[in-house]
């Protein structure tokens, strides 16, 4: 198995988080916190850094192994299987929700006469194709695509300067301390890329760098999150942020570089499509790895077909739910906190406790 360089690993974490942020979370943050959105994004960034540090500290005793190996160490193959299934559910759910969101947007803007299933299929087939290629093909392309996406968001932030209403950040506490800090902490689900931290160490060229890589990834994304939330907060009335199209895309329509550059939104949507393709590739390879681990198979390539079918079925089911926004808002948060944060850290703590009692065991 080819391993990732530090840079590739950092940008994988950034990609996983940035897709959740742009397609879903920015909207939820601004909608729930109003004028205190920037404050909330800074707060959840600090919280994410703290959690990442905790995860990395708990991982110190398990160099070069992933969470499933730790689960096996604690409770044997059965626990490994259960934990694997839970993480599989989270990754598949996040893939399906983001895919549905972008395909809906594409259908509204460009493919009004095309059945959504064809748009979904085009993404799913591309994901299958990426995953059939060599192991780190997606990680190298992700490095480029995510960098372009970060630059695009920064340019959107700069180009919209004329449209900003700086007083939109007042009242500074928005709906109150409770809404910004306590309820607002649930917006931590934006950092969905934390899930990758549990599976990252064995994939790194130098597993000892996992702390550096994790912190760098979360830090870069935090800057990205604050920039994107600031753009939306300073531009729109929070009531305008709700809707089918993601607000950063809407903000690009306001950019005016005279009559020469007029359709920047199309370019942005293309970058978004590439970015989501990269996200699906990374997430699907993670699913394959989880499935390979819990089923103890040697070749993971055949696993891709049932996973793609499962993804398509979840997407079609989600499309049939009219209150899709409420689902993404609440279910995404619940799954993130119960699986990625609670279950993940709980397993790491148990692993550390057991490690104290079983000192001489070697895990590989």
């Amino acid at each position: 198995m080819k391993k990732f360089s530090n840079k590739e690993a950092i940008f994988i974490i950034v990609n996983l988080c940035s897709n959740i942020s742009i397609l879903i979370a920015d909207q939820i943050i601004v909608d729930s916190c109003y004028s205190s959105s920037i404050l909330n994004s800074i707060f959840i960034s600090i919280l994410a850094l703290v959690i990442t540090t905790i995860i990395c500290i708990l991982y110190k005793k398990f160099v070069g192994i992933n969470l499933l190996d730790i689960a096996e160490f604690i409770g044997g193959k059965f626990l490994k299987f259960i934990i694997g299934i839970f993480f599989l559910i989270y990754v598949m759910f996040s893939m399906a929700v983001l895919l549905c969101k972008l395909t809906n947007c594409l259908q509204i803007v460009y493919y009004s006469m095309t059945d959504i299933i064809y748009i979904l299929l085009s993404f799913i087939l591309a994901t299958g194709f990426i995953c059939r290629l060599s192991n780190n093909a997606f990680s190298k392309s992700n490095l480029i695509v995510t960098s372009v996406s970060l630059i695009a968001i920064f340019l959107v932030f700069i180009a919209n300067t004329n449209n900003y209403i700086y007083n939109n950040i007042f009242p500074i506490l928005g709906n109150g301390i409770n809404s910004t800090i306590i309820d607002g902490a649930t917006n931590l689900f934006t950092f969905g890329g934390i899930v990758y931290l549990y599976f990252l160490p064995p994939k790194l060229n130098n597993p000892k760098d996992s702390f550096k890589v994790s912190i760098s990834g979360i830090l870069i994304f935090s800057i990205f999150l604050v920039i994107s939330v600031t753009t939306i907060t300073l531009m729109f009335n929070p009531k305008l942020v709700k809707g089918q199209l993601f607000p950063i895309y809407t903000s690009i329509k306001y950019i005016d570089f005279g009559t020469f550059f007029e359709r920047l939104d199309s370019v942005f949507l293309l970058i978004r499509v590439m970015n989501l393709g990269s996200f699906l590739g990374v997430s699907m390879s993670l699913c394959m790895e989880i499935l390979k681990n819990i089923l103890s198979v040697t070749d993971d390539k055949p696993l891709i077909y049932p996973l793609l079918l499962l993804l398509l079925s979840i997407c079609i089911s989600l499309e049939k739910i009219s209150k899709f926004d409420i689902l993404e808002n609440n279910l995404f948060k619940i799954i993130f906190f119960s699986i990625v944060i609670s279950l993940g850290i709980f397993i790491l703590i148990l692993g550390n406790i057991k490690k104290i009692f079983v000192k001489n065991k070697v895990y590989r």
Partner: protein
Amino acid sequence: MKKVFYKILIVSIVSIIFIYGFSGSYSISNTDNISYVTALGIDLSDDKSSLQVTFEFMDTSSFFTSGDSSNTPPIINTIAATSISSAINLLNVYVEKNINLSHCKVFVFSQELAKKGISSELTELMNNPQVRPTSNLIISKCSAREYVQNSTSSLEKILTKYYDIFPKGSRSTGYTANITIGNFYNNLLTKSSGNLAILGNLNELYPSESNSSQNSSSSESSDSSGSMMSSSSGKNSSSSSSEEKNTDEDNKKAKKKQAEKGTISVKNLIAGDSNIVGDRGTENIGLAVFNNGKYVGELNAMDTLCHLLIQEDVISFLLTIDNPEIYEHYIDVTLKENISPHISIDISNENPIININIDLTGRIALIKNSTTVPEENNIDLDKISNAVNFSLKNEILEYLNKTKNTFNCDVDNFYRDAKRKFKTIDEYQKYDWINKYKNCDFNVNVNSLIHLGIIDS
């Protein structure tokens, strides 16, 4: 060999599936099947219960024949429908092409409809992903159809370019503003503020205006039974000699009217009331004021200038002082803002106090009295500066009191500065800015630094 065959088979099947799946969208997105609207006019229908939607298209056929679209009159279609979407639907059937609003530069609403409220129509437009939020919003004192029909200029013959340019010129005059549909809608959702749109009207002295309006009214009356009207622009030129004679007569009439009107003070200048005789059938001067999505009044050119000064949205402007009580000579001063206006709001008292400091710099463009031009040595720049300060302060106060007492809404978005004083939205809402604004006091301070003109004579 078998593997290659299967690969080719799979690729072919997938390609066929996608060609089938995406062909529907391709066929409607194909440029051959799309008609791009350049301006959309929305009027209230005669029965006052539905809308009359006017679509203006560029005649693109001239691109293919001569490569020149400059002299081709636009195509105008009007449809009576219950909503804008249903009007688009009907027109799709009529023209047998798909109507696309992604190049629509201007949305014109008639004053009559605006008085009833345009929130639902704007929401409908903003819900359309083709609509650009940077398109301009105009409230027409005449019918939107008439406005669209007459909205061309021989100075800029390409219609789309013309729509692009005209609102931007406002930054160097201050007599109107570049108000976009996106910003208007964003403000509409904020209950704390009023809202403004560009005010447009037919040019009263436009030589063939009488003809065009007669033509349009006759065509409207003849078509009133149907729900759809179609015509080319009201400026559609005809070469017959009798019409040339009519045009000459119209020109004479227009000049006579202009002479009767004389010069119009900026304070009385508003769209449709100017004394401009030219080749453009419409004019945009002043702004339309909205409260809760309903038209409540209008700002004249001077009010608009005051609004833009507070908003720091005017690059330079000309101020005329022609009042011997303020200054003994007639003066024209070109002014621009030195720094952003400083606005502070004091909410410690029962009624909020809004403090506005405006810092200007300018040059004398003209100074004269009825008989002689004063010598340079006799010009007291401090006195002129005081006159400018006094004059502008009075104008701004008069404008602000108008927004407070007549319109009962905060069109200058002072609420944004007021929000700074509160920690939470709840506290701000309890303060009830909308009602407090009606009783607020204004402190306006204008400081200007005046220089002599470029030529010292």
